[in-house]
């Protein structure tokens, strides 16, 4: 049952990658970038991106942006925050990148999403609206 040194090394790398992913979950609303994540994990940015993608199926940048956009969807549905404020609140520093990635993931730009949602849940009690609009992780919009 003893593991080979190579297998031990592989498990250690996976633990490191898990900690990077958990850190994205915890700190996505801060100005994180892949270089800083890689530096703290003791890897180069390119190596981290390749190994993270091999382990989790998407790059750390993509995972970070997915987390941000999930949170942005929730804030936009609440209806009391502008698209620009939401963009900065979830840790994005570029409105253009935020809107592009949002549209890729959700299917519509954030402004349209906010507007549609305001219409979709008008008249529904807030507690019920919360339930039916709960974001589902990693479910990207289907291609139109």
């Amino acid at each position, binding site marked *: 049952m003893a593991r080979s040194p190579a297998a031990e090394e592989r498990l250690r790398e996976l*633990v490191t990658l*898990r900690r990077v992913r958990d850190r994205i979950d915890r700190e996505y609303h801060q100005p994180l970038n892949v270089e800083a994540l890689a530096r703290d994990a003791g890897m180069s940015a390119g190596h981290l991106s390749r190994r993270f993608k091999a*382990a989790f199926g998407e790059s750390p940048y993509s995972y970070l942006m997915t987390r941000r956009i999930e949170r942005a969807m929730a804030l936009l549905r609440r209806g009391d925050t502008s698209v620009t404020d939401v963009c900065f609140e979830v840790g994005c520093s570029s409105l253009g990148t935020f809107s592009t990635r949002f549209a890729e993931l959700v299917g519509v730009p954030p402004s349209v999403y906010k507007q549609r949602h305001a219409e979709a849940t008008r008249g529904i009690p807030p507690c019920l609206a919360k339930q039916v609009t709960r974001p589902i992780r990693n479910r990207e919009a289907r291609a139109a």
Partner: protein
Amino acid sequence: MNVTIHSAMLPQDDPEAALRFYRDGLGFEVRMDVEYQGLHWITVGPVGQPETSIVLYPPEATPGLTEDERRMVAEMMAKGTFASINLAADDLDAVFARLEASGAEVVQEPTQQPYGLRDCAFRDPAGNLVRIQQRD
């Protein structure tokens, strides 16, 4: 008919580290620690709730696993995708503070979720996701 949830199984790969998390961090009592050939099956649970336990088990001892499957389980635990559990607490912030002070890996600070509940999340030392929500 009255069926209760008696025990849930969570894998562990370091008995000492598991005890530090569940006993010292979370405050669970240790109900049993069965050792066989250096492997440990540790039964823990919340004080005052003897009818519900978590068994921290060594997954490599599962009978019928192929070598590939055993490696796969170890890798999924390492990357944090193998097992998880949801707990609830009267005082979420107190539990969070205690676990954090014990050195546990924080995944999420106490957060009001858009779907209604307030929760936090940790990794246990084996990579299991332990989510704790505020009890109403």
